[in-house]
């Protein structure tokens, strides 16, 4: 039987309360959202926080709102809520594509988007999607809010810019893309990715790609800026989409593990990038 080590537990009644508790109790204190990454790690004693601050009562963090030009997603939005929002699916199909392949429906009832990005697992699906979309994280601490682009949010495997006495409150997703898509290869339904790619595009007259975002998952880095730089300003022709995939594959940094060797993952990164771009362009039309 797997049981976590001893810890204290307290429920936050507001974000400010959570920050005060994190500040007072020190760096061995952690926030718990859905608990679907943290609790398994605590059961395996890979994480041993001395205190957990439960933020599940904070309804203020559970909103999905569309403002002019931006989709605002509270950190406590559950995977199932994001997938259940028809508005999100219409505006940013990449998020629904990704949510459909995260774990299984029961896990998605509990896991949150904030917990997902704060966990910063290199195989995390939403990380690639939010990077492609150029989303911005809003992080609150004792001194107020700061905004950090998702592309600067991850500082390493399981590491983010969120400080020990800070809480991620919101993800702001700018609505610049006309089409977007997410494609993942996994070994079985609901498993973590072998590799995955997110793509978002805006197109202008003559099918020219005026802006593009590409995000990768499980291949060493979430970003594929070289491929974006190649495609931006070029026509969305089949040859250019294939070349963008080749560039993404060339610059990713997969490592071999039980999910596959480096060559295979690199191949997937390229092929999935091209296919996600193709689908995003189709959806933009």
């Amino acid at each position, binding site marked *: 039987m797997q049981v976590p*080590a001893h810890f204290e537990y307290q429920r936050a009644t507001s974000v400010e309360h959570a920050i005060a508790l994190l500040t007072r109790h020190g760096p061995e204190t952690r926030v718990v959202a859905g*608990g679907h990454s943290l609790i398994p790690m605590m*059961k395996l004693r890979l994480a041993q926080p001395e205190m957990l601050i439960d933020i599940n009562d904070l309804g203020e963090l559970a909103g999905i709102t569309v403002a002019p030009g931006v989709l605002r997603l509270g950190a406590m939005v559950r995977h*199932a809520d994001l997938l259940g929002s028809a508005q999100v699916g219409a505006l940013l199909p990449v998020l629904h594509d990704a949510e459909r392949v995260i774990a299984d*429906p029961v896990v998605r009832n509990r896991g949150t988007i904030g917990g997902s990005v704060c966990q910063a697992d290199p195989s995390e699906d939403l990380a690639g999607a939010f990077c492609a979309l150029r989303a911005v994280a809003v992080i609150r601490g004792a001194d107020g809010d700061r905004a950090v682009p998702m592309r600067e949010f991850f500082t390493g495997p399981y590491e983010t810019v969120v400080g020990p006495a800070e809480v991620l409150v919101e993800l702001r997703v700018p609505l610049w893309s006309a089409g977007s898509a997410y494609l993942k290869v996994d070994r079985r339904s609901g498993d973590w990715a072998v590799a995955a790619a997110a793509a978002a595009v805006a197109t202008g007259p003559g099918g020219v790609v005026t802006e593009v975002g590409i995000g990768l998952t499980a291949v060493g880095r979430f970003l594929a800026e070289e491929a974006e730089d190649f495609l931006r300003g070029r026509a969305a022709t089949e040859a250019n989409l294939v070349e963008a995939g080749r560039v993404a594959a060339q610059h990713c940094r997969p490592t071999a593990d039980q999910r596959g060797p480096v060559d295979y993952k690199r191949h997937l990164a390229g092929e999935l990038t091209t296919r996600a771009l193709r689908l995003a362009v189709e959806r933009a039309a």
Partner: protein
Amino acid sequence: MVVNGREHTREIEPRLLLVHLLRDELGLTGTHWGCDTSNCGACVVWMDDVPVKSCTVLAAMASGRRVRTVEGLEGPFGLDQVQRSFALCHGLQCGFCTPAMLLTSRWLLDHNPDPSEGEIRSALSGITCRCTGYENIVRAVRHAARSEAGS
């Protein structure tokens, strides 16, 4: 915590998991406990009307909330339709996955009274069955949907 409509109060350690509170403290052993790693789904219960894996929820997190286990499926007129359909269609063999399958199926039919085979398979995909090959489980859920539509 209100479990199957009954209020329970306990002093617990924060590290106690919901599955163990239900089984060991409240004696509700219908909630099964399998992989312990959030994968098999044998431990599914409803918390505030939503299916969750109770091996990955702290009992303290469920404090003050509503929990429904397989023992709470039966209504005033006897077994729930999903229970009757699983029995009729041989939707179980050893029964280990069955409480979770029943609770998740009940939730599915409450939200989608006429699910397709694909929707059923997807809704139940977080729960592993090692016996049935799933065919009869899907058939049972379809049977329950038809029975409820007809009644």
